[in-house]
């Protein structure tokens, strides 16, 4: 029974809880269907059809079974891209987890005034557009004019300029640093928040029992940080798999194929001649499946399920 006065304004009329929830979620469901679900399904459709510029003009996409996937798996460059993506992800995620724990502990020292400065600055990289970050680092790495070589010359560390991003041996490692720089604040933030949740009494008790700082870290801090480290591992792994902007800005996949990564491969195959949309979709789907697996683990085991 509704006790609302019915004065004709539509939001005054009472509806059932289910109907209310349905109407409130309608825009979201439309949006998700239109911009997420439909494209993901359509990408699957494209991946088993022949779609090039000619087909796009005619508007007919002939079915070609798993040809796109077969050609993809025969393409050496695709495997190079996957290998590079795995190396890139392994380095960036590994470094981020370790650095995030260390730096979060560092900014937690409120009695050290420089720690307060660091804490104030920690979010800065999050504010930098990824493509600008990439371009800035390509300036830093520049062989002739680069900032990094200038610093090392000034410090007297090197006598000859080093071609950081232009050398196939170092290029892939060189592009990990800007990515780590930009995405680290997020990881530090999460660890820092988790540290605030550890009761001080645990440390006081451990100190009474004569535990060293080292023991307290391994026996108390690290075990209690494990859930948040799992969150960081999964989120950062998923996003590092799809790295794009820094690659575009710093190396464009080069030198040679040294920094071709999965998203760059899909982009180049699709949007530069000969514009193979079918094969691009197939390669993007492989990437999506890898990331999808991470997402399922996240929902199932890591993100506290919707009991709110």
């Amino acid at each position, binding site marked *: 029974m509704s006790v609302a006065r019915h004065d004709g304004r539509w939001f005054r009329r009472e509806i059932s809880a289910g109907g209310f929830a349905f109407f409130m979620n309608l825009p979201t469901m439309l949006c998700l269907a239109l*911009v997420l679900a439909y494209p993901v399904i359509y990408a699957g459709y494209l991946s088993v059809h022949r779609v090039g510029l000619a087909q796009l003009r005619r508007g007919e996409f002939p079915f070609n079974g798993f040809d796109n996937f077969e050609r993809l798996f025969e393409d050496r460059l695709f495997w190079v891209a996957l290998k590079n993506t795995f190396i890139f992800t392994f380095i960036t995620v590994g470094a981020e987890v370790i650095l995030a724990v260390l730096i979060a502990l560092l900014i937690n020292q409120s009695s050290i005034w420089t720690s307060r400065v660091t804490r104030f600055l920690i979010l800065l990289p999050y504010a930098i557009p990824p493509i600008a970050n990439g371009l800035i680092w390509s300036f830093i790495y520049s062989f002739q004019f680069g900032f990094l070589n200038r610093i090392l010359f000034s410090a007297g560390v090197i006598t000859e300029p080093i071609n950081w991003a232009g050398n196939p041996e170092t290029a892939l490692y060189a592009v990990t640093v800007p990515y780590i720089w930009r995405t680290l604040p997020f990881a530090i933030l999460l660890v820092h928040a988790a540290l605030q949740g550890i009761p001080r009494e645990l440390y006081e008790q451990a100190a009474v029992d004569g535990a060293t700082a080292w023991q307290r870290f391994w026996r108390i801090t690290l075990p209690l940080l494990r859930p948040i480290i799992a969150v960081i591992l999964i989120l950062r792994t998923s996003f590092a798999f799809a790295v794009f902007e820094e690659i575009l800005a710093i190396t464009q996949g080069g030198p040679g194929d040294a920094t071709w990564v999965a998203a760059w491969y899909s982009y180049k195959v699709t949007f530069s001649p000969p514009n193979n949309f079918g094969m691009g979709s197939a390669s993007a789907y492989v990437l999506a499946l890898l990331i999808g697996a991470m997402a399922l683990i996240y929902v199932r085991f890591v993100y506290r399920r919707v009991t709110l």
Partner: protein
Amino acid sequence: MFATSRTNRLLLHLANVVVIAFILLPLAAVVIGSIQSEKALQADTRRLMPLEFTLDNFIVIFSKGEQKGRIYEQATYLPDNIKSFYAAFANSTVVAISVTFLTLLFGSLSAYTIARQRFRWTIFLMQANIVARFVPAIVLMIPLYIVMRSLGQLNSLSGVIIAETGFLLPYAILILAPYFDSIPSELEDAARIDGCTRFGAFLRIVLPLSTPGLAACGVIMFIISWHELLIPLILNARPDFMTLPVVIASLVGDVHVFFNLMMAICLLALAPTVILVALLQKYVVQGLSVGAVKG
């Protein structure tokens, strides 16, 4: 938790200095790079600080290439995209504000019901949002490009706004739902007994109480949308509809553009979000941590 002996304190200060230097290195590079001339940069390739500074890089951008200043006097070529800086800045602003507004609007409607009404399908919707957050943009872009092309929606701001709203909405819901959940439902119950409808209770009781949550979500949506490259890069190729990240990306392959000009435009593109983060740091921190682990 560490013993605070003199050596320990010294080591901690040292560690902080290293971290601060690492954080500031790219910012130093972009600032120093943008206020010197190509000539100064090339004259001495080993010097850290240049001998002379100039604002000509900014002047040439702000005057759409008309006032060339001393350092661009002899330059016969300037990339067209530099000239469309104002248009790109305006486009970026329109897109970011629209996306922020739409994600907040749809997101709060949805997140509120997900937080309050526990139906099987709302729980499923929440899980779908979590999974959707992981979908990489490149997977969406290929089909979206084909769809927008056939609809004639390439090169329009509305196409980019729709695509980014759909892309960011799941994340907005992940940030907002925990906020609505943290508001005690007794207040709404009281309002409902006094004759308020469900929507009225949401509009008049819950929304005003969740302004910090809306602020946290809004600032993050604005930042991500301001930074988004792939969606506008693929959908908008015409200079009139480029956003700032697309203009920056277009300079990457241009061998005639020197680093100084690039750094100047990068600095202009990163300034708005840096200012935003500096002013609203508290909300950014809250939004980021809530969105990842649900408070």
